[in-house]
């Protein structure tokens, strides 16, 4: 197995590591960077639970290799809150009961946060479209749909 030295900034903290070429970014984040909030739900890019941001854009970390993140800024759910203050997406999810078991939740939060914090102002339809890329088995998406409506209307709780 080939080994590669990589340097990745994770939640604003630089990390250097040597990784096998085949190590997925999701497994790297979980086992080498202690970001266990990155949840692996399918390992084939459908469920969205492992979603993180790479250079500000939401990606499925199970479909990316750790070596591909060399030199990148990676964001996970662990890095979203500012101290005690939850990110507006997290706060809205909390207020709208957007989660039950919480397994799909970090991925959902990262996708919505990447849109809310990115360029432009996503409307409800755009946020709901993005939710379509996440599978949740608990909630029937009821709270998440309300979150999309509030954030899409410009609310930032």
């Amino acid at each position, binding site marked *: 197995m080939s080994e590669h030295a990589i340097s990745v900034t994770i939640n604003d903290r630089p990390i250097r590591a040597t990784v096998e070429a085949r190590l997925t970014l999701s497994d790297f984040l979980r086992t080498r960077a202690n970001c*266990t909030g990155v949840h692996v739900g399918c390992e084939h890019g459908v469920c969205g639970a492992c979603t993180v941001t790479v250079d500000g854009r939401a990606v499925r970390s199970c479909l990316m290799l750790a070596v591909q993140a060399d030199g990148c800024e990676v964001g996970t759910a*662990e890095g979203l809150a500012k101290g005690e203050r939850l990110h507006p997406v997290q706060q809205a999810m909390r207020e709208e009961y957007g989660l039950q078991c919480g*397994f799909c939740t970090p991925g959902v939060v990262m996708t919505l946060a990447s849109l809310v914090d990115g360029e432009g102002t996503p409307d409800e339809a755009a946020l709901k479209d993005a939710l379509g890329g996440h599978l949740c088995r608990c909630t029937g998406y009821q709270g998440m749909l309300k979150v999309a409506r509030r954030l899409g209307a410009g609310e930032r709780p």
Partner: protein
Amino acid sequence: MTGGSPLGGAARFVGERVPRKEDRRLLTGAGSYVDDISVPGMTHCAFVRSPIAKGQIRSIDVAAARALPGVHAVYIGADLARYPANVTPVYVTPGANEPTVLPLASTDVRYVGDPVAMVIADTRYIAEDAAALVIVDYAVETPVITLDAAIGGAAVHPELSDNLVHHVASPDDPAVDVAFERAAHVVTGRITHQRQAHVPMETRGIVAVPPTGGEMLLYAASQGPHMVARYMDLAFALPDIRFRVISRDVGGAFGLKVQPWREEVAVVAATLLLGRPIKWIEDRLENLTSSCQARDQDCSIRMAFDADAKILALDVDYRNNVGAYGPNSNANSLAMMMMPGPYKVPLYRFKAEAYYSNTVGQAAYRGPWAIESLARETLLEKAARQIGIDPIELRRRNLITAEDQPFSMHSGFVIDRTTTRETMEQSARHLDVAAFRRDQAAARAEGRHLGLGFAVYVEPTTMAFGGVLASDVANVRIEPTGKITATVSTHSQGHGTETTMAQLVADTLGVAIDDVTIKEDDSSSGGFGPGAGGSRQAVSGGGATIRATRKLAEKVRAIAAHAFNASVDSVTIESGVVRVAGVQEMTSSVREIAEIAYYAPDRLPPDMEPGLEERSRYRPPPIVFSNAAHACVVEVDIETGKVAILRWIASEDCGPLINPAVVEGQIAGGVAQGIGGVLFEQISYDPDGNPVAVTFKDYLIPTAHDVPEIEFLHIETASHSEGGFKGVGEGGAIIAPPTLVNAIADALAPFGVDAMALPLSPPRLLRAMMEGGQPR
């Protein structure tokens, strides 16, 4: 409910949409699921699984796998036999014809995915590399895959005489035949329900740590740590070792994680052999092919009606395919018991049979008996069309009412304090049926096909007849700091019991919810309880929590009364403040009372034990019925066969709501799973028994675009349980399928469609429309 709190006093938290205590850690990635556990020296496991549905194992060559650097061990069945384990169902079915279940297949394989060997290595990557190097030589045999093939086909389990697992039937009452002969209307139907998978977003998983000091620690994705600890203690019966199980955050379960099964038992045995910690996390391929599954049923049903559309008799013939090895291998007696539902059915006859096949086994899945509502409620809508009567009016003439209750079903179950009629009328009013029919007619004139479906049911919750579900326990204590810790035998895999139980404690004691911590994740504290399963946690765990907390409140008041030289009756606790009525200076805090209780025993009333901790083990009423009526509106695109759900109304009665947001969350999640079952989800096999839905691109669960925003209506009729609560965990999944099927059938009524093979996928609906003919 009217008239204040179910706890009797003023409610501050119960009945409110209190934010969930667990959400902050889950939103910030700080949850602790089993795959997040790492212990020193931990190794990783991958299973070698059968690629064929049936065959003899001629040989297993593990040499190459063992030689791979980083591999610690490769075990086959003969290795694990050193720690024999009794893999059995938690819920025993008397009279079932059951095979011996071994953790690893040893002589022959009986389904694709049957585990035959396990590799333990430094990483999962290496374990999977090595698993691919294990060479198993099979003598391939012809499997039986479908229900029809299983009946009379080659025995799946050679040690058993045939594939019939279990059968139940009512006494053959000739009066049933007479009723059908004399009936004004006879309506027949047949439902074939496809096989489904539970697919919690977190798969199964376990971390096993070798025993030290007589204790073997397991971290497990479970529905209750006490159940897993008990299971392993009984399965292995190790004289010097007792299991301790920690199950902190669990990513959904829906019945799949009620009890450990073959792989978890194999990991424990392997850990005992290896002497090093082993982690096994099921991957999604394994989850869709080797985790136990559900449904796979064929139900024929007919009903006789008199000229006034009153039900005379019900006759049911049911069969299900339970796969090879599963903890739920039975003929679904509960479905037969519940089939008449909330209706007055004078005569009832049933026959039910379960068969083994060379497919993965079955486990209980949210509303395991749900076929009763699907079969009955779809037949009633069909009857309404056939007889020419409004389906709501048909139900009105047959539903049991408040005056009929308590009402004894044929099964002996007693339905009491339910409001099926009221929920049906409430949902119909809310929907405005007359307005919908006008919209429907207008749409049809434009070539658009709208449909409206109703369904009504009662749900047997709590299930505390006996066995593991008989009771729950709460241990509640006020710490010397004045903070409250309650250890309850409930368990959340998303249920929010950390919040709802805290609401009960806070109101019963009279303290702030932020001062209450609920513990339910460790089998070494508290006491035995089954955790989640049977829609019972609010009723059983909630009842225990209220009773234990009430005792604690009484002790606080007794200590305060003694300290202030006042009567106990004059002492109140509110917002953590202990007061003597009418005497302002006689005020204390719960913390000050706790300090007396722990640190100043001489200030306690004579003979009172120091400390502030109370427990209660609560046996709830054996069965507590909740009920609901759902209604939904769909539009079916007759060009593509695609179904769009436009509205969904859920009118339910689960008694007093502890937290409406949690109740609605339970219902919505169940509805979504029901929608998946009707429209999308299908586990299927090719003729050789190869599973063909093995990823989330083949096994389709509903997305945010497939579930409408549900309109909730609540009626709160207290049950006989402590607090008056009723269970609500499974109902959405039970009642959603008939509601949606009925709406689709209504939309396609002009085609004369009677499509009852689920899922109602676009190709299947198009075919049904073509077979039904042109719109009439």
